[in-house]
């Protein structure tokens, strides 16, 4: 049975300082890397003789508008079914440059996951075979899941937030 320490140490041995911020919130090993290293890292983990992270569970993104230089975070959840071990990898991007390489050559499932992330956050997956919006209209010129689009009009003054638990 794999342990978080074992997997983290193997990654550190292979990639050195290219993979950082190791943590295990709620026992799920988490680390960060750069966009240059994300494809080599997942390729390595997928092809690793013992680890065999052959299942891409999920790709999504998070917007941190106040975190200067790290406004966007692309999150990958991968799973080694052989070892029953999950791993979360994050890549932080700046708001000015939201490009990241596609994962479609490694996993067919990445296609729609990346389209969804593009649709909702505007992350551009370089090399994606068909990067179009998937849930929203093609005509939309904004990315709705970004924090700059709150659900309610923030300028409304006809109600007191404190009374509504806000």
């Amino acid at each position, binding site marked *: 049975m794999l342990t978080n320490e074992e997997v983290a140490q193997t990654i550190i041995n292979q990639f050195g300082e290219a993979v950082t911020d190791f943590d295990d919130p709620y026992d799920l090993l988490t680390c960060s890397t750069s966009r240059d290293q994300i494809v080599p890292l997942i390729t390595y983990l997928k092809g690793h003789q013992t680890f065999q992270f*052959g299942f891409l*569970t999920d790709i999504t993104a998070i917007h941190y508008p106040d975190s200067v230089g790290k406004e966007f975070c692309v999150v990958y959840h991968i799973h080694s079914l052989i070892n029953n071990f*999950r791993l979360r990898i994050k890549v932080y991007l700046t708001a000015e440059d939201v490009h990241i390489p596609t994962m479609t050559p490694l996993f067919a499932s990445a296609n729609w996951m990346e389209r969804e992330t593009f649709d909702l956050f505007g992350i551009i997956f370089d090399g994606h075979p068909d990067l179009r919006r998937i849930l929203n209209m093609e005509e939309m010129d904004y990315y709705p899941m970004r924090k700059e689009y709150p659900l309610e009009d923030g300028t409304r003054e006809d109600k007191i937030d404190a009374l509504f638990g806000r």
Partner: protein
Amino acid sequence: MVSEELDIANKNLPAEQGPVQYVNELTTLNLGPTHPATHGIFQNVLQMDGEKIVSGEQTIGYIHRAFEKIAERRPFYQITTLTDRMNYCSSPINNMGWHMTVEKLLGIDIPKRAQYIRVILMELARLADHLICNGILGVDTGAFTGFLYIYQERENIYEIYEEVCGARLTTNMGRIGGMERDLSPTAIRKIKELLVRFPKVLTEFENLFNRNRIFMDRVIGVGGISAERALSYGFTGPNLRAAGVDYDVRVMNPYSSYQDFEFDIPVGQSGDTYDRFMVRNEEMWQSLRIIQQAMDNLPEGPYYADAPQYYLPPKQEVYKNMEALIYHFKIVMGEIDAPVGEVYHAVEGGNGELGFYLISDGGRAPYRLHFRRPCFIYYQAYPEMCKGLTLSDAIVIMSSMNVIAGELDA
């Protein structure tokens, strides 16, 4: 024009005119967005060469309701109502999955009795989900009778939901920290009756289909997908197990006491439509086993955790207990903050791994919530599974994949 006809035509032409060109015109066929066989509002644009499907492309998002965005302004408790509108054929699984995610974030351990009740309700939901999927597969192959036979049982399962929570389809079942109420004697009686009656109905259903030559001709070898491709596409649940991979979240990452129960993981071999049908049928038997075990060993004790700041108190308590009234108000008004944290929790939904990725910044609502919806993940494989087959095959493939538009778009 077939090649032999082309040869004859070319022989009869004067040499200076040149050979006749074989121009193969493809037909574009819109299957959906609204079509009885699309099982929801989504469009498949198929390129047909006569009867054969050459390629296809899907358009989804017709009922996209931006649940992930809405969740960012809602207290954790109120997000339950979003989850049961995803895969509405098995809403309780979605509800419980969400509650377990929040409980993980909050560090709440719920009592055994509540865990067992959750297992019973989740397995009932799986029964209802598989019943509909397999029943409708029968309808899509022209066999309406089987569907009628089993639909009554789905109705009976909904009556149990109604007894437990008051709702039938969008159940909003349970609470963060346990159950809203204990199983009533009527609910227990109805579950026990179902356990007696359901095997007979399921046997009858299997007798109608499993060795039915017409049905078998329609589904065997149709829409097969290899284990390798299924994994690459991110398949989970019955669709992956039909391809021969025994991945089941209930076994790999047990939650809600699933480790206490004995059950098997049925797997197929070829990943075709017949295997998906058979895997779902067999899973219904396994669900019955689990429910029987949970009913036989239902522990005594409380049905909710001792976490008053998070568990919405029962209404009768609110009327007579000041503490309960205060917590009721605070929880309903969303004044209770959650700790900072990041959680991924997965449950075995009707269609496969239903994951909740929750990021809390310490506020009253999630900073970010992402649903890993199994339908969304595997539906992209649909054109590949249909390639080279006919339109009637495409219908049964879609039916056997159990694509639920609510979960696909979310």
